[in-house]
Structure formats: structure tokens, C-alpha cells
């Protein structure tokens, strides 16, 4: 497997040398392999947003290294347009960046900026819309600002997907969505990786969705990478997470609670069905139920 993204000892300070100076990153290290879904979690103000803005060149490394597809982003001769085609960054509440009157035009904004021809643009818009679950014929001529919040977010995401980037970065993709739409979004993100082999980087506060989606997790606290591992490895350390102001998914917390009360259960479980099996195995629930009935 090759690394599509490497971050080495990255530092960043906002407004250096001013009274508003704020250190955001103090040494971040991470590596992302091709086709992985990697989640970045951390408390508010830990530098996650600053970090991901490095990945498509919105912020250049002040100190340390960022390599995207082998290209060093400190290199000022690097073609930023190339970089932005490779790395699609989807900001938090992206529906607020929409501006065109018609859905189709808004999604075509990106591909047009990169100078693609009309048929190519049309084909990409169509594909992107279908990926996010908006019918091309049905939605392309709809008024952008008459759509619902969830539909607008789909349009905004399609706008980035239409660039067909190899690395996709989502900043809080499910923030502010209702549970059904949120889980629909998460399965779309998984499909993007599974069917189109995109590499996905996910920033989220929602531990349930991280547990469901991510192959690996980086925990960032106060601008430093403090933990790295699979969701099972990370979430089994719930005490440590809590000390960072984070938490494991609720199911995992239940298992930790059981263990804390002296029950010998596994704590590295991430889903309700896994927990159900484990609890059933340990307590032999059916027998107990029978006893209470009798």
C-alpha cells in the first residue's frame, strides 16, 4: 500500500507576531494509505480544521512537512489547481457555499473552473448527482435555494465530487442533519470508498459514526497527535479519551460500565449487535428471563 498523504511534525501559528497570535498545531504526524477511511477526532479547538486545510493547499506548512501523493506542499512552485483536483475538501455546513440559481450550474462550478469541456462537465455533474442520490433529470434545473437543508448539502457535496478527487475530506459531514439523513450520508461515504476506491478523511465529533466508518483513527489534542489506531484500539481506552474531553460510542461506554462493575466483558465493541452478542454470551440472558418469569 502506498501513502497518499503524509504529515510530519506539522506546526501552525495564526497571526504570528501579533496580539492575536494563536498556536494551532504543535506537531501533528499522520499517514493515510490509499483507499483508507481515516477519521480525525479531537475536542473543539484542537486544530482539526487547520490541519485539513493544509491538505488542499489552503494553508501552507509553516514548519514540518505535508506530502500529498508524493508532492511536498511546502514547494511553492507546486500547481495548486492540480492539488485541488486531487484533494476534495468539503467544509462544515457546505450548503452555505451554494450560489448558483440552478442546482446543475452549482455542481458544474468546480469542473468548469478546471476548464473541462461541456460534455465532460455534464457527464461529471450527472455522475456526482447520482452518487449523492439526487436524480439528474429531476434536480438539475431545480432552484438551488428552494431545496431542503439535506438536499442542499447533497448538492454541495456533489459539487466537490464532480471534481473526481482521489482524496476526499469531510469536515463534520453529518452535523445538523436528522438521524435518518445522517446515516444515509455515512453509507454514501462508505460507498465512495468501496465502489470508487476514493481515500476518505473524516473529521467528526460524532463517535458513533466514526466507529461505524473509520478504518483508523487519529486523536488530536491541542495541536498534537496523541493517539492512533483502529476504532477498537482507540475506543477501548475510554478513560484516556475522557481525559481529552472525548468519549467512546455509547455502546462501548455501556461495556466499559459493565466491566467496571466486575463483569468480564470485552470493551472493544463498536456496534449494538456486537454488544448484544457479547452480553448474551456472558449472562445467558434467556435463562435469566425464564427464571424471572417463573
Amino acid at each position: 500500500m502506498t501513502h497518499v498523504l503524509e504529515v510530519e511534525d506539522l506546526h501552525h501559528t495564526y497571526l504570528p507576531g501579533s496580539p492575536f497570535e494563536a498556536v494551532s498545531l504543535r506537531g501533528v504526524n499522520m499517514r493515510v494509505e490509499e483507499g483508507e477511511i481515516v477519521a480525525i477526532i479531537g475536542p473543539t479547538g484542537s486544530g482539526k480544521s487547520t490541519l485539513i486545510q493544509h491538505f488542499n493547499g489552503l494553508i501552507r506548512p509553516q514548519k514540518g512537512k505535508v506530502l500529498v501523493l508524493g508532492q511536498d506542499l511546502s514547494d511553492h512552485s507546486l500547481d495548486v489547481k492540480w492539488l485541488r483536483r486531487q484533494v476534495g475538501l468539503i467544509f462544515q455546513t457546505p450548503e452555505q457555499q451554494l450560489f448558483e440559481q440552478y442546482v446543475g450550474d452549482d455542481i458544474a462550478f468546480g469542473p468548469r473552473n478546471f476548464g473541462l469541456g461541456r460534455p465532460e462537465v455534464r457527464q461529471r455533474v450527472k455522475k456526482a448527482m447520482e452518487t449523492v442520490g439526487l436524480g439528474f433529470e429531476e434536480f438539475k434545473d431545480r432552484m438551488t435555494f428552494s431545496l431542503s437543508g439535506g438536499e442542499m448539502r447533497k448538492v454541495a457535496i456533489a459539487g466537490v465530487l464532480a471534481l473526481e478527487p482521489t482524496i476526499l475530506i469531510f469536515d463534520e459531514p453529518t452535523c445538523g442533519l436528522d438521524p435518518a439523513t445522517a446515516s444515509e450520508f455515512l453509507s454514501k461515504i462508505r460507498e465512495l470508498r468501496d465502489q470508487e476506491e476514493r481515500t476518505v478523511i473524516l473529521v467528526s465529533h460524532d463517535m458513533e459514526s466514526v466507529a461505524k466508518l473509520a478504518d483508523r483513527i487519529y486523536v488530536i489534542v491541542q495541536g498534537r497527535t496523541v493517539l492512533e489506531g483502529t476504532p477498537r484500539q482507540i475506543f477501548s481506552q475510554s478513560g484516556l479519551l475522557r481525559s481529552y474531553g472525548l468519549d467512546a460510542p455509547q455502546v462501548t461506554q455501556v461495556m466499559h460500565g459493565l466491566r467496571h462493575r466486575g463483569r468480564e466483558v470485552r470493551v472493544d465493541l463498536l456496534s449494538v449487535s456486537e454488544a448484544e452478542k457479547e452480553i448474551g454470551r456472558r449472562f445467558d440472558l434467556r435463562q435469566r428471563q425464564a427464571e424471572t418469569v417463573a
Partner: protein
Amino acid sequence: MTEYSAFSHLTIGQYLPYSSVVHRLDPRAKLVMFTLLVAAVTFANSYTASVVLLAVLLGVVHLSRTPLRYALQGLRPALPWIAVFALLQLLFYRNPYGPDACSTIWSWGFIDITSCSIRQIGLMILRLLEFMILISLLTLTTRTTELTHGLERLLSPLKRLRFPAHELALVFAISLRFAPTLAGELERIMKAQASRGADFGEQGRLGFIKRTRNLLPLLVPLFLSALRRAEDLTLAMEARGYTGGRGRTSFIQLKVLPSDYLALALVFIFCAIILLGGLESIDQQVFTAVSDCASNVFGFVRR
């Protein structure tokens, strides 16, 4: 890259939390002094007066411990416009006071560069500098709440004439409060559109046309979010029982100290000297001295 961050660092309206004599002055006194100095800058019509004003303002900047960089930061985006105005004045100001008032330095066709146009440009640049420093000084050293209260108090005698002093102060406070917020919003939108391949930094032969067209993806979301914010703000204010200025008391009680009177008196005297002190005559003397000297040198060279 700094090109996007520049927008959220507008210095107008950003209070710098230092502690200095200038910071501690009463906001009402500061507003009055500000008005006096603006008048002085506007009507100062000689090099001497302008240079003295600039020197004094720089002195106050030093006194307020504000880095000069901050006081002048707002100037940078204005530079191209200053250049355009300077050029227009250089070419077309010509000689509005009759042929005796100015001497022609260079003329070609309808273009007439006179000593008056040079003077006009020099004064304009000095004036802009001074305005920039003045505005920055006021907003960098005074909290917006103080400023609003000061303004409201200063205007309150006019309330009897049904002048909406409170509302005006509120509008002022809200616009100052939201300038950095909107700038931050703009930065966010710029970054989002740049991620979709929009290019805002590009300069080409038709760069400015492209730039104007590129504004649409920024302005539409920015206006939408500004409207949304306005609506939220209205609701939030009503939810907290805001019904207008009538009968409202204030947590901040302003108190004028002897130092405020002293500063006011100093500024008043200074402005009087600038405006009425006949500083033009010094200009005249310096000019004659310089032109004498120049003609001597030229004469010498020609010989």
C-alpha cells in the same frame, strides 16, 4: 497561504487589548477629539499643517502602544485606488486658480502638470494616511461597547428633538461588531470556493474582469449568511426583552476625569493652531527657499 487569511484580519473595528493612556480616556472625550482631528485633517490645506498633523498622530499611535503596522494595515487595499486618483489628479488637475497661482512643470497636448497638481497629490496622500491612522486609533483603542455608549451619550441631548440617538448608536455598534464576523465568513466562503477550483488571486491581462465575475460565488453566500445573521440577531434581541432604548439603564457608567479634560483641551488648541494658525505662510517660505535653491542649482548647471 496568506491570501485568504488577509480578509479576517481587517483591523477596522478590532480592539487591541493593550493598556495605555489613550486606551483609558473617556470614549466621549475620544469621540470629540476624533471629530476635531478629522476636521483638522480635512481642512488643513498646507504641507506644514499636514506634516505636523501626521507627526502628532504618529506620536499618539506611539503613546497608545499600538504597533504602527496595525494602524496602517487598512491602507494596503486602498493603495491601487490612491495610485489611480493620484494619476488622475496629476494629469487633469491643471490650474484651477488661474495662471498666476501655479507654475507649469510639464505640458503635452491637453495634459498640464502644474505645481498645484503635485501639491494636491502630496496633500491627498498625507490626508489619507492621517484618516487611516485616526480611524484605526479610535477603534483599536476603544471597545465597541464604550464607543457605543459614548456616542449615545454625546447624541442624547438631541433626543429631545426626536433624534434617534440610541438607534443610531445601536446600528453603529452592530456594524462594528459584525465587520470581523463577516470577514471571517468571507474567508470561509473563499476557501470553500477555492476548494472547488475558483481562483481569486490570479492576475492576467483581463484579470479585473475575471475578478469581478469571480465575486458572485462569494457575494451570494455572504449576503445570504448576513441576512440569516440579521434575522437571528433580531430574534435573540427580542427574546431577551429588547424594546428599544427607552428606560434602558447601563452597566457601564462613564465618568469624565481631569485627564480627559486635559486631553480635550490639548487637542482643541492643537486643532485651532492647525486650522487658524496661518501655517500656509510657512509653506510659502519653504517653497520660495526651495525654488530659489533649485533655480540656483539649475542656473548653475545650465551655465
